[in-house]
Structure formats: C-alpha cells, structure tokens
C-alpha cells in the first residue's frame, strides 16, 4: 500500500472501531437492569444463603 492508502486505512479502521464501541455502549447501557436501591435494607434473599 502506498502512504495515501495507509492513511485512509488507518482513518477508516480507527474511526470505525471507535464508532462501533460508542454504538455498542449505548445499546448495552439501555438494556442494563437497575438494582432497586430502595429495597437495600430489606435485602433480597439468595436461595440457599444470606446476603
């Protein structure tokens, strides 16, 4: 590859990788459950043990 092609390749790979991480982060974040913190004191019970 000549130097122009190398620069373009770096630009596309780097921008693409970073864009993919940004999009994946949003998709995963909005599919993450929240622990209901107001129930902390009640303590959800683990089967076969205590928290």
């Amino acid at each position, binding site marked *: 590859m000549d130097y122009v092609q190398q620069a373009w390749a*770096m630009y596309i790979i780097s921008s693409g990788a970073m864009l993919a*991480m940004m999009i994946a*982060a949003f998709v*995963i*974040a909005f599919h*993450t*459950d929240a*622990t209901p913190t107001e129930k902390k004191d009640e303590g959800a019970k683990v089967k076969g043990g205590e928290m």
Partner: protein
Amino acid sequence: MNIAVLAGFLIFLLYLGYAANRKNKKNDIEDYFVVSRSLNVLLTAGTYGASFLSAGAFIGMNATTYAFGWNYAWQNIGSLAGPFFLFLMYVPKFWRVGYYNNCLSMPDLFAKRYHPTWSRALFAGIILIVYTSGLASMYLGLNAVWGYISDLPLMLIVVIAAVVILAYSAFGGARGVSWTDTFCMICIALGVFAIVSMLIPRMGGFTGIIEQFAQAETPEGQMWMEGKDLVTMANAYYTGPMTIAWTMIWFLGNSTQPHQVTRAYLAKNERVARIGIAIGIAVIGVFFWTSWYVASYARINFPNLEKADFALPSVIMDVFPSFLAAFMLIVIVAAIFSTASTMLIIAGQCMGYDIYSKLINRNTSQKKIISVSRVTMVVCSFLAIGIAYIAQSVPTLLFLWASSFAIMGAAIAPSLFSAFYWKGATASGNIASMIVGTGVSLFLYAFPAMQPFGLHPLMPALILSTLTLIIVSKCTKPSSAETLDKFYNPLVRYGEKAARRKGLID
C-alpha cells in the same frame, strides 16, 4: 479578556465547591466520598467523562500526533477500548459489590476480595504515589496554555490552579468534584463541538490533508518524524512493538485507574452508571477523532512550534475568533482541573479512609476521617507542585502521565480482573502480583538499559505481574467461601432482576 474569562471560571468552580459543601448535610464518609451513591445520568456522565479527558488527552494526544504522525490512531483505539472494557466487564459488578458490601474505594474492594490489611495498604500506597506524580503532570499541562492566558510565571499559575482545585475538592468532597466535573464536561463537549464544526469544514478533503501532512519537515533540533512517515501505519518512532505496548498502556490504564473506575460507585444504580459512562465514551470518541484534523492542521500551518505541546493551543488561536479562543483555552484548563480534582479526592480517601480508619485507628470518627483526607489532599498538592517544578523540562507531559498509567496497569489489572472473573485468585497471589507489577515497572523506568528487547516497561511488568498472580494463587490457600460469596453470589453476579429471572433468588 482571557484573564477575565479564566478568573470567572475559577470563581464559579469555587462557588460549586461551596454549594456542594452546603448540600453535604449528612457530612458522613459515604456522602463525602461517594455522594451516598446518588448521582443521576448527567452527573455520572459529567464526572466520568471529565475525569477521563485530561491534559494528557487534550495536550499530549495532539502533541504526539503532531510530532510523530497519525499512527497514534492505533493508540486511540486502545484508549477508547479501556473505558469500553470497563463499561462492559466491570461497571455493573463493581457497582453491585460496592452497594451490597458497602465498598467506598478500590482498595476497599481489594480488601474484601483479597487480604483485608495488605491488599488495602499496598493498593492505597500505589495510588498515593502514582496520583501525586499524575497531579504534577496535570499541573504541567497548564504550561501549554498559560502563555496564551496571561504573562504570569508558570509556577505561579500552577500554584493558583493547585489551590483552587484543592479548595473545591477538599471542601465539597465527591459531590463538589462531580458538580465541577460536570460543568467542565459541558465546556469540553461544547469545545469538541466547536472544533468539529469550525476546523474540519475548513480543511477540505481528507486525501488533500494526507498530501499536505506528508510534506512536513522536521525542524532543526527536534526529534520529530517527517514526510511520508507521518501518515504511514508505523514509522521509526512508533514501530509495531512500540505501538502495541503504548496501546496496552492506555487500554489497561483506562480500565483500571481508580479515579475513573470509582465514578461507577457514585451512580444511583448500575443502569445509571452504564448510561452515564456510555455518554462519556461518546464524547471521548468524538474528541479522539478530532486529533486527525487538529494535529495535521497544526503541523501543516505551524511546523516550527517550540514544543509539540503547543499544537492544540496554536490551532485554537488561529481558527477561532478571539472570544471563542478564550473559551477554548478554558476548555483545556477545565479538562486539566476535572481530572486533577478526581485524583486528589481519591488520594485523600486512600489516606483518610483506607489507611487511617481501616489500618491505623479503627475506632476513629467519621469527622476525623474526612479531616485526615483533607490534610492529605493539601500534602499531595504541595508535593505535586514540587514535582511539577522539577519536571518542567520533561519533553512532553505525556511521558509523566503515561508512566503513571503503566505502573497502575501492571500492578492492578490482573488482580482487578481476577476479583470478578477468577475464583482461584488468592490474597497472597494479589499481594505478590501488585508488588511485582509496581516493582518491575519502577525498576525499568529507572534503568531503561535493562528493558528486555527494548520493550516498554509495561509489557514485562504486566507479564510478570500476571504470571505471579497465577503461580502464587495456585500455590497458596484459596479464598474462603464467605469471601467469594461477596463477589460471586447471584445478586452481585447478575443483578437482582436477572437473578430473579434465572430463579436464583426468592
């Protein structure tokens, strides 16, 4: 006008620290160190993003790309992969371990997973050493902008900055830091938007930029790359192995640095933590992308800068009208302040909470813990000013900043990953791994001639630290079931809703 804008910025930060202090009604350590785990999405995004984007990113990244070429883009992938890995693998578990086991710091987490005394003491000690030098590199980042802001001597600017950062961090606690960070992050996001909207359209097509950048020559007396080497995938400075080592530094540093990781503790739940950090990742990603244009514009138009660190400020002064240029310089200051303040409060917490209240005086009061933390912040600030004074001649501040990342990465990364993903990791393995990771990286920094095959200190330090963790863990007493339960029970491992769906809890 620049000095007036800077003065207004500093006064507003102090006001936010004062307002946060008034809001800290409970005045207990959970409120002071983790804001009672109450931050919403905006504040989580603000404190995470602003803590991440430092002088190293604003000044160092553009300076290195300016001097050595676009192949720094490989390192940017590693830099963003760090927070993405943190987001993906650690954040929800980290938040839940903190919530269910009442962890307030990363040494606290290590103390509960590994050895209650030595894991805590070693980790806290590493943080204090690394963050004091990290603070110095933040202060030195002001060197790149102070000349544009005022005629005052650099060290006077450093002292003023250190005092302001100290005042709002020590006074306002984690709430003050998160509020000021969020304000700084808003400024940073506006600054990134300004660069994207004003600089990039002005530069024309990318192939044209490649052609122009590839014609730059190295000025006399500089060790920079020139010509086509600036746009190729590797060159004599950033060879393949060197690029891999640096990419690992940023990846490991950004996924293990306590001043970034602990931002997850502050969120009100793991969903908020993840959404906040996702927003942070988006702003950071766009900012990294701008370096293609900022660095090449600077090298094409200002090829003879005295220091590469002046690349971004020179572009700002050339491209933006004066009122916007003043704002953009403040954006750089905001990035420096926000990272420094988070590092400072983490250092204070290490001494006040982890070392003093957990190891020296277990019966102390919460008020005393906060007082010890505040005194530590004062001491760290003075020490960092001293280091900054001595290190003024360091070629680019990225060196000082990267060394703190490398030491932290080699010492902490294997144990942090194993805390959540390898039940076989033991307390002895963790202690030995942290000692080997820190010791080897410090030794190789001190004696560069001893670096095997010319490898960056991180690589041998990380390999040896990981091997030590595995071998010592295999040879020593396993962690107790009670210890492992804190990290591997269904509530921590999957979260309450998912554990319920799987039928693991009632």
